[in-house]
């Protein structure tokens, strides 16, 4: 593409009198296509070269082709899919529960003064305790089964959802409330058409943080005491020194994270199409 257009442009600029620079002088320059992927490709290439030349000890980091072969074996005997489904369901349950609880609490606290006095304080206190520090207590209360894992993830998730949604609700501009008053709008209509859409950007920002938190919590609960899931697979491989399986697990975590983030961004694009972003 670029090699085709470059000579054509030169021909035009020599033919006309307009010789101004087409690029912004102080800007970072033209955007590079697939720029985000080039760095990743370079890193992968370094790994391949390092392994092939023997600079990277296979005991430190397995060769990429071994990782691919291991992944194939794990898929063939069904262990990878099984672990992925278990971890995925775990994360989704925790995320769903946390988002629902965080959203409800934010709405109650954001829309009524009574709710705010009752809810906001305890949540600010909860926010200052790292969720992962609660795991010992949760194990005592709930045992080491699935409920403990899902609730740990939910506890990590609901805080960012609450904080950002509540903030979004509270910072809706007073002038819109004034407008709604002059239009004779009822309280329900005001909440539905002004407050909730106005808080949407805050909620979606919270959702992006929540997805990251849920994966972090997932990794921790799976590594600590699990009998299934990607984390369990990694822990087991660690005891036997199987770096190839560890790397496969990490790749799966990365794919989980990237795809979850992509889904949230897709939702964001659909729900916030009214927004003029810098990108457009």
């Amino acid at each position, binding site marked *: 593409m670029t090699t085709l257009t470059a000579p054509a442009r030169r021909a035009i600029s020599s033919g006309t009198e307009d010789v101004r620079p087409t690029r912004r002088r102080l800007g970072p320059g033209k955007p590079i296509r697939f720029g985000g992927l080039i760095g990743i490709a370079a890193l992968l290439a370094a790994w391949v070269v390092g392994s092939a030349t023997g600079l990277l000890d296979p005991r430190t980091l397995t060769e990429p082709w071994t990782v691919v072969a291991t992944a194939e074996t794990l898929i063939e005997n069904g262990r990878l899919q099984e672990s992925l489904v278990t971890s995925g369901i775990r994360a989704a349950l925790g995320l769903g529960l946390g988002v629902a609880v965080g959203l409800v609490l934010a709405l109650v606290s954001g829309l009524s003064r009574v709710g705010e006095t009752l809810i906001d304080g305890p949540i600010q206190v909860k926010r200052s305790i790292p969720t992962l520090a609660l795991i010992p207590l949760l194990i005592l209360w709930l045992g080491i089964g699935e409920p403990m894992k899902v609730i740990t993830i939910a506890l990590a998730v609901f805080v960012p959802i609450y904080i950002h949604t509540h903030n979004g609700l509270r910072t809706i501009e007073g*002038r819109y409330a004034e407008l709604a008053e002059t239009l004779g709008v009822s309280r329900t209509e005001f909440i539905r058409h002004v407050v909730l*859409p106005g808080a949407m950007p805050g909620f979606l920002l919270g959702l992006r943080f929540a997805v990251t938190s849920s994966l972090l919590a997932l990794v921790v609960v799976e590594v600590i005491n699990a009998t299934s899931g990607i984390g369990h697979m990694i822990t087991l491989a660690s005891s036997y020194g199987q770096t190839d399986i560890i790397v496969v697990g990490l790749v799966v975590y990365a794919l989980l994270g990237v795809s979850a983030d992509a889904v949230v961004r897709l939702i964001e694009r659909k729900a916030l199409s*009214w927004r003029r972003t810098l990108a457009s």
Partner: protein
Amino acid sequence: MASHTGELSTHGPAVRVQDLHRSFNEAGGVLNGLDLEIAPGEFVALLGRSGSGKSTLLRSLAGLDRGVAGTGRVEVPEKVSVVFQDSRLLPWKRVLDNVTFGLRSSDASERGLQALDEVGLAGREKAWPHELSGGEQQRAALARSLVRDPELLLADEPFGALDALTRIRMHTLLRKLCEVHRPAVLLVTHDVDEAIVLADRVIVLDGGVVRHDARIELGTRRSQADPAFARLRAELLAELGVEDDHDAAPRPAVGRLSERAAS
């Protein structure tokens, strides 16, 4: 619409304000016993220096001054619409939904489309507010006010944020719309020329009371080249405490231009 105005005129003035006091602190009132009457269909421009109480009066007529200390009687019609200085369109609603927001009748979207057509925004009903220019946004805000068939239209410097050329176009549009819908209008403005061009009556507010109240008898075609226009302008500026460098005698456009450049 015609039946509306007839009905109103039998009921006396559209707006009646008696002995209105408003103050934001102990030091002194913003409005100090203000009296005002506006007839149905009358276009009143409200001039005054900053802090003279223009916006406070408008907000109390709009019912937006709850929590402000004060006394007095305010009578306004049932249907009041407000146009703010910013268009105040909800950014997450398309233009038509903004115009019909809060309308409960079943033909709301039809009426909304008609109102958009009236302000020259036909075909833009699906646009997002940020896709409109400043003037177009203010047109949409006008449509939102008019679709409610107001008996009283309150406008708080509605063209203050627009460029000079757009403002002239909006003046023509507002006059045309008011001739069709005949609401009583109270327009708060800083711009003496705007007041003279648009209004049937100009009121100057000072110290929280009406200081000057004059009908404008210039007919419907009002030109700034008209000597009567210039006289009125000088008179109003004097009431506002602004020294006009040029005497009140009629001046051609050249004189006005140099004055603009000097200020």
